[in-house]
């Protein structure tokens, strides 16, 4: 709908997936997985609501559609959003509480190396841009932490990140997601 979708498309196609942009409910049909990209969570949620996409998407993800959410995508999925717009309603499917822009404004955006569970080899380059802060990771499985806070979580067929692998050229997380979607 809005955000860094083109960057995800490139990373997924390099990881061997075929892709389609989802802007209407019809676009949801026949997917093995969906990416909720980084962008502005308020904008994305409103656009999905106006397009009648929010409910079908909620059903699809609740029904087991593999989901890869980055940054704003994590906010859209979260059970609790702190400091969102008063009437910001999301999907409420991921058992985390997040604070919007919890690491500060753009001048506080940063890069940091992360150890992510299940990824061998070198640390993963974490690019954090006006990132949400996970205040509680609930029942989710934490895949990476930074300064004590979860920055990557998994819950069933949902993987959600505070950072932006699509901006890095490191395809390991996209490859893992393509495997998850195919399974």
């Amino acid at each position, binding site marked *: *709908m*809005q*955000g*860094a*979708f*083109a*960057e995800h498309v490139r990373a997924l196609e390099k990881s061997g997936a075929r892709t389609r942009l989802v*802007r209407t409910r019809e676009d949801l049909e026949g997917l093995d997985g969906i990416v909720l990209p*980084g*962008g*502005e969570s*308020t*904008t994305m949620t*409103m*656009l999905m609501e*106006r397009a009648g996409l929010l409910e079908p998407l909620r059903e699809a993800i609740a029904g087991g559609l593999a989901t890869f959410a980055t*940054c*704003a995508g994590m906010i859209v999925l979260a059970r609790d959003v702190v*400091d*969102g*717009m008063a009437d910001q309603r999301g999907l409420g499917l991921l058992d985390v509480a997040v604070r*919007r*822009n919890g690491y500060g*404004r*753009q*001048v*506080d*955006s*940063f*890069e*940091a190396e992360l150890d992510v569970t299940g990824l061998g080899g070198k640390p993963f380059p974490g*690019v*954090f*841009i*006006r990132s949400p802060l996970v205040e509680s990771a609930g029942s989710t499985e934490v895949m990476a932490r930074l300064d004590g806070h979860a920055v990557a979580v998994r819950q069933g067929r949902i993987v959600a990140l505070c950072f*932006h692998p699509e*901006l890095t050229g490191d395809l390991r997380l996209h490859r893992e997601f393509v495997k998850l979607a195919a399974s």
Partner: protein
Amino acid sequence: MKGSFKVKAGLAQMLKGGVIMDVVTPEHARIAQEAGACAVMALERVPADIRKEGGVARMSDPDLIRSIMEAVTIPVMAKCRIGHFVEAQILQALGIDYIDESEVLTPADEENHIDKHPFKVPFVCGCRDLGEATRRIAEGAAMIRTKGEAGTGNVVEAVRHARAVNAGIRKLQGLNHAELVHEAKLIGAPVDVLEECQRLGRLPVVNFAAGGIATPADAALMMQLGVDGVFVGSGIFKSEDPLKRAKAIVAATTYYDKPERLAEVSAGLGKAMDGLEIPSIPKDGLLAARGW
């Protein structure tokens, strides 16, 4: 590590497919956010009023900028004068999310733009063609926009600038390295940035349309010409029904290639802002000519 070029350019990547709206009050900012803007530009006067009232146009009062930052959760941008690096330092100190080094304000330096690399806050700059775009990127701009002719409600200049950038990039595709160096000389472009444009087949940073966009169709036109998103300045709050028009322009930017959706959202919006024919503007009143 804070303020790297990756995180500066990265925020612009998060704004893609979105609409950035000029606002002059916290109330405007809330309307823009409710309409689905992905960011707002905090200003004292929209370009149409700057054009009408004349005089030196400067950075906005920090109190106004702060009040707009407090009113919304989406990113807030603000403008500084071309070359006025102290206005930029002040905006960074306020914690603004993006600085527009803008020809809409009166230039403070007739030769130099701001050296944008040392700043932690990212910059967006206007351009009329590929040479200008690549010079701004070399100075550290993390996002580019067309200049258009701000405050006119006339999209013709934005179209000219977007097409000029596209044509400039297409021309690179057939050039060998020696020819690329020659082209760089002709258009006043830094060779390394031009090489990157050739390799990518596009600008290496996000590229938005700006200047004269007044209708949903204008926004969709710019998107179909290949820009990543749009700025709307005077077009929203100088129109009859700002919230409705703002929502329609957001929808048109998402569904820019779906004419049926564009027909739906274009209907019943009330009166658009008053427009200006470009030839009716005296030569020294053209904002796009500012910037070097």
